[in-house]
């Protein structure tokens, strides 16, 4: 057992921050699943909406990226 307490805290915090990515996963799955449900109801309208699918996924993903960012900051910047 060696190393300092601050580093231990940073590593634990980085691991905890990764829980946030699960939320992003739920969000992205929600967007994609609802898109597929809508596309199966009205397949002819689906191709026109793929841009919105990707925009929605990107916005949902952004919040997961912040948790990733916090993890990176704890690992390398603190």
């Amino acid at each position, binding site marked *: 057992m060696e190393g300092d307490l601050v580093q231990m805290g940073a590593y634990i915090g980085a691991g905890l921050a990764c829980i946030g990515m699960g939320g992003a996963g739920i969000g992205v799955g929600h967007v994609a699943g609802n898109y597929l449900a809508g596309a199966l109801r009205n397949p002819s309208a689906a191709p026109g909406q793929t*841009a919105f699918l*990707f*925009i929605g*996924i*990107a916005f949902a993903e952004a919040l997961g*990226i*912040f948790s*990733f*960012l916090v993890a990176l900051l704890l690992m390398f910047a603190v």
Partner: protein
Amino acid sequence: MDQFEVRPLFGGDTVGMFTITNVTLWMALTVLAVTLLMVVGSRGRALVPTRSQSMAELTYSFIYKMIEDVSGRDGVRFFPYIMTIFMFVFFANILGLIPFAFTTTSHIAVTAVLALGVFITVTVLGFVLNGASFLRLFWVDSAPLALRPVLALIELISYFVRPVSHSIRLAGAMMAGHAVAKVFAGFAAALGAAFFIPVLAVAALYALELLVAVIQAYVFTILTCVYLKDALHPHH
């Protein structure tokens, strides 16, 4: 990790402001690849296109249609900028997938410059085109009056967070994908006789990474279009 290390190309250990590194090399190769496809590949200007000219034309019309759909007709003025961003990110991602290559887009420094360029362009453009009424982007007219200051604060924060999420999304996706491939390759060495299982997994991951490389370039470009739309039409 070894594959993400920036090192000088021609000897020496220190990386200064103008040192030629492996990042410089792979960025130059990216520009070369874009030039090969878009300039040399479509040089013939044939009525019935050759394979490379057809690929260049398909990419061109794909991006053109994306800008028209997302930013509106007056966004087409900014086609050269958005096309440049797409081609650069796309080829940087794809070239990074070559074994022993350096993925320039896996570094936040590279993607942050691209995203900050978009952010500054869009902000300056919004104020030049709309004057002070660009600030109405943050004042949501459709919301109840009591809620508007709170929403304005949230909109303001989300506006300034854009370059952060824009750049880290791309860098994170590329870095994570390459790191996962590296971890699975490490399993192959550790498992001995059963090495073929992780090797198959790496092959599958590689295919997934190819998909991610294309989708991330697409997402980066489409978000640029979305931000551009906000500058052109700030009144929702």
